[in-house]
């Protein structure tokens, strides 16, 4: 009886999980399918799924019309650069907040998080003018700085949560054992928080890779990453869905592959501390 009940429950849960997963994945799937259709089948009503004319032409056109490797390289530099710079700032900050908290640490953390509640467009003009003034428009270093600052609250919060899980006595033991602050961070804190640091890094790379507001506003050609590459295919003359889909697929493919290979690490990091 109990066994039948538990099997039924398992079946229902599995169906529900697949349902949710497919719903989330459907737009991506549709985009990939569309990228292999002709422009005519891409906009056909009712939507064609099996009867479409399949083609690789869109990819060839997109590749020929634009400098994909340059966009790709800009994306890599901006995403990885902003993440590494963010970690360099956030690890000491999170260490201080977790292990030597002051009376206002909690407020400081909340304030940092609250900056994420502000719409980006609210600071667009001042930031644009600053970039103009300091010659940072359409530069990779400018975007690295902006994306680092945009994602810093999330990196600090995530690392702070992981560091809080590490018992303070272990760091005190390291201090008693003669470890300097540097050795304490290198030999004890970082290895213990490594799953957390790795998942923070991966999540931040994904966020930076997919960022589309600042990358489009602050770049034109030289520093434009893949988000700008996609945007360049939504032409004012009319939408070319199939080519747009091919460009999008080419833009997300690298990060999708990275996410696929690191999903174990991501899940482990995101549930760190939740399961003891």
């Amino acid at each position, binding site marked *: 009886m109990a066994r039948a009940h538990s099997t039924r429950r398992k079946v229902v849960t599995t169906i529900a999980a697949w349902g949710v997963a497919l719903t989330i994945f459907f737009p991506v799937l549709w985009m990939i399918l569309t990228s292999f259709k002709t422009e005519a089948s891409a906009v056909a009503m009712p939507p064609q799924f099996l009867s479409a004319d399949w083609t690789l032409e869109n990819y060839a056109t997109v590749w020929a019309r634009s400098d994909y490797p340059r966009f790709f390289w800009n994306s890599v530099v901006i995403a990885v650069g902003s993440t590494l710079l963010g970690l360099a700032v956030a690890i000491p900050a999170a260490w201080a907040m977790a292990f030597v908290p002051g009376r206002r640490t909690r407020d400081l953390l909340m304030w940092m998080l609250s900056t994420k509640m502000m719409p980006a467009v609210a600071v667009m003009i001042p930031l644009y003018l600053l970039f103009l003034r300091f010659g940072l428009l359409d530069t990779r270093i400018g975007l690295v700085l902006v994306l680092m600052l945009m994602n810093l609250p999330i990196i600090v919060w995530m690392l702070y949560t992981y560091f809080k899980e590490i018992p303070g006595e*272990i760091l005190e033991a390291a*201090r*008693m*054992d003669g470890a300097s602050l540097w050795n304490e961070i290198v030999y004890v804190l970082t290895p213990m928080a490594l799953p957390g640091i790795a998942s923070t890094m991966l999540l931040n790379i994904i966020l930076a890779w997919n960022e589309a507001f600042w990358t489009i506003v602050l770049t034109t050609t030289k520093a434009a990453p893949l988000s700008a590459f996609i945007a360049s295919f939504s032409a004012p003359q009319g939408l070319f869905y199939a080519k747009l889909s091919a460009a999008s697929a080419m833009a997300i493919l690298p990060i999708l592959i990275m996410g696929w290979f690191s999903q174990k690490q991501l899940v482990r990091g995101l549930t760190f501390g939740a399961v003891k």
Partner: protein
Amino acid sequence: MGKIELTRVRKAFGEVDVIPGIDLTIEDGEFVVFVGPSGCGKSTLLRLIAGLEDTTSGTITIDGRDATHLPPAKRGLAMVFQSYALYPHMTVRKNIAFPLKMAGMDRAEQDRRVERAARVLNLTDSLDRRPGQLSGGQRQRVAIGRAIVREPAAFLFDEPLSNLDAALRVGMRQEISELHQSLKTTMIYVTHDQVEAMTMADKIVVLNAGRIEQVGAPLELYNNPRNLFVAGFIGSPKMNFIEGPEAARHDAHTIGIRPEHIAVGDGPWEGVVGLSEHLGSDSFLKVAVEGIGTLTVRAVGEIGVHHGDRIRLAPSGKIHRFDANGLAL
């Protein structure tokens, strides 16, 4: 060498004086136990000696050298924590070798010292395991191993046995005592368990509300407590305190008599047995005595006394006398 002197050491957290000012000398090679109830400041005092907390004022000298403002690593002390505080990502070998690595010792000497410590602590077979794969007792031994390889001036123990089960605790207590016998290094041990204090210490420091109530050898505290607090804290079960006419008869405000110093049989006090606990080796009775109150009595072996029995009691040992301020007369 490991002589530690505290002079007017004070610690305040904000407005709160946790330790209002302590003077204490710990001689080289002594096993000193800080004992007191929760929140009495014993762990804070140990952390001040370790350098994990800064003193608000006063000085700490270690072997004649002012260590008040030295960082923990420069004080030449090793500490064993309540939670063991092992590095979970390192093997036992690396845990024990960590302080040596930090000191920049060469690998051959590191290995030699780790092997020796492992032999002493019976950890040779576990050297390549991680702390997560060890039992509580083994983890505690690794923590001790990490402390002894440094050959420190003194060992600091912060309630090291409180996470172990009762049987293991007795075993580890003996091991630590034997370690002290063989190393002859100064040890400072913090506990709230007065049995640990009595069995291990050369000298006990009884603390209450950040103040030292009394310092002395275990039996000195047992036989001659300086005040009511020490009298009540040292000894298990707790000393009986009697006030009123019975105390006045002894020319005191309060008299104290230990449960083991009351004999069942003939005597001046008569009462009814409430709770009676028979452990085989001992029997503990709670007896409601008219005009005095409830007395705890400890009798050796099995005695045929049960709940509701009417019995007579007589003092058979020292009666401690205290004045109105709680000080011994």
